[in-house]
């Protein structure tokens, strides 16, 4: 009888604990397209290498969506779940390439917004050595964040 009561107590407490927090956390999904970077002289392979390095530096994760696609993905996990993701996309130009940045972040748990994450990636990509395309020009053009 005594053990039955204890087991009942334990089961009730476990159920309460699970019910209190079992609902999926509600987070705001924040997505931006950051300013694209145009490199007038360079190869797609160089762009891919820089994209991979930037994602690895900032997010500690980088893989190509499909071999040779030039679409590089980084994912940040919190507690085993992906809470931020970014795509760096390389597209060849005549003698160079354009790199575009798309970032999605769950807030919370991330302290950074999607804009902040994309800013870090742009910096890591080495935007200072590249040329940001002027806004409102013909393609390839400057992007912006929203």
């Amino acid at each position, binding site marked *: 009888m005594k053990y039955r009561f204890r087991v009942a107590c334990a089961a009730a407490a*476990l159920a309460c604990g699970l019910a209190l927090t079992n609902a999926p956390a509600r*987070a*705001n*999904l924040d997505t931006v397209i950051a300013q694209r970077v145009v490199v007038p002289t360079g190869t797609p392979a160089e762009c891919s290498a820089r994209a991979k390095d930037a994602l690895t530096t900032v997010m500690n994760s980088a893989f190509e969506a499909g071999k040779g696609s030039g679409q590089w993905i980084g994912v940040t996990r919190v507690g085993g779940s992906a809470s931020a993701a970014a795509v760096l996309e390389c597209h060849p130009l005549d003698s160079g390439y354009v790199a575009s940045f798309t970032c999605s972040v*769950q807030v919370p748990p991330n302290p950074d917004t999607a804009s902040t994450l994309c800013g870090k990636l742009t910096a890591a990509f080495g935007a200072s050595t590249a040329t940001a395309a002027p806004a409102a020009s*013909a393609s390839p053009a400057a992007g912006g964040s929203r």
Partner: protein
Amino acid sequence: MKRNPRALRLFAVMLFIGLVASIGIAPAAIDLSTGIRYAMPTGTIDDCGTKAQAALGKYLQNVSEASPGSHEYIGTGPLGATSAQALTSSGTIHCYPPVGGGNGYEVTFTCTAETPNNPYTAKELCLDLLHNIIGQPETALPTPTPEPTGCTTANLIGTWQSDKDNTVLKMTPDGSLTDGDGVSGNWILYNGTATITYYGNHTMKLSPDGKHLSGDGYSFTRKC
């Protein structure tokens, strides 16, 4: 009733285990898809922009070009989301000139969806965006389940006005509650008895008409 210290200790320990276990399994996650890179042999990059905005507008809202002339478009969703907290998906479409010049354009996609809060996956969204642009049959995406409304004894979802002061609690289907100042808590309802976690735990009774909640010094009326 005689208190059993061991049972109380056991209750506390198991409650803690339950909470910790839940924290580990509860977080929502981002699902990402880069869709398919598609090369269109005809048309201009402006055609791509027009189609991209139309495709995004069919499945998402707040569609815009990242900046004028960028040919990068973004939308957030799902359709019908009324607050920032309800935004659980997004899609971006990038239009590029064809490699090597000439006619046509290249289009790429990036889609994200928060699982399990979004009614469809990122891959499903990206596939429909592509199919919309190239004129292939699209698959209808599920829409969010509308929040239950009205007074019921089945849940506490809705807006509750304190009968004693101007406190207003908004309780949502995921078991959470928020007051007007952004202070959050949780609610549980079992057999007409509610456990409200809001500045401590409070046990209250739900009236048979589902409209009044009272106990532990509190009294609320649901707007319905």
